[in-house]
């Protein structure tokens, strides 16, 4: 990618973008859907998918959440 297209991509905004607050509110729901089928999660919540494409910190939180809920993650039941 050359600089021109990198800048163009950086400045491009998607009106469907849900913003961080909504994405963070739904992140656990989105993560469980994405763990099974990432494309299906994007279809169910296109506004969140649009946000995650543009927001590095929220995308990083999703990746962390996906890593931890995978089988073998640090889950433990009470009692």
């Amino acid at each position, binding site marked *: 990618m050359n*600089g*021109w297209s990198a800048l163009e991509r950086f400045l491009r905004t998607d009106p469907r973008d849900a913003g961080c607050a909504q*994405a*963070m509110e739904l992140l*656990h729901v989105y993560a469980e859907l994405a763990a099974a089928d990432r494309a299906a999660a994007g279809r169910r919540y296109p506004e969140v998918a649009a946000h995650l494409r543009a927001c590095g910190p929220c995308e990083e939180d999703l990746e*962390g959440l996906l890593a931890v*809920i995978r089988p073998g993650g640090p889950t433990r039941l*009470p009692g």
Partner: protein
Amino acid sequence: MSGAEVPGRGRASPDELDEDSRRWVQALGGTGAEREAAAARLHEMLLRAARAEAHRRSGQLRLSGPELDDIAHQAAADAVLAVMAKIGRFRGESRFTTWAYKFVMFEVSSKIGRHFWRDPAVSLEAGDWDRLPDRFGFEPSRESEWRDLAAALRRAVEEDLTGHQRRVFTAIVLAGVPLDALVAELGSTRNAIYKTMFDARRKLRASLAANGYLDDDPVRRP
């Protein structure tokens, strides 16, 4: 920006939860020794998640083992507080553990953002337009092709953005400050800083398009 549909706001009844989630909610919503024991187990679980997450991000950070573990401990402790405070808002639209881990991710991000400022060389105001070519991969050998675009962008930043938008743009784009670090420094929220950048990006794109530097096509659907 638009709003996503948020699942029902009501509190889930115990019958609506999966068995594991129901046991967590029941134990953490109890009293006395049962609640304390559940909180201790929650902390243990979230600490493991926080350590895993800090380790996962260590490649991007200049952090060593003890510092990473310190961040994990702080994040786990604050995530437990968040879960305990919000347990009444858990609606069962995911497993309880997924919901609880979400707060670990937020807290790790927040702690890493704060940690950024421990480097005394970092400055919020150190925006340097000479860094723009590196930021977007403009090749020095092709400066004649991008010089005018870079000058137009600088003009748009100086003339079209509000003072706050300019400050946020300068910090993130020119000074390389991570968004969560800027949130910590300004005492703001991730959503507010992102929205500021979103609006700034839209303005800058419109300005560059109006002056013929970019196509007038603000949205390209994936």
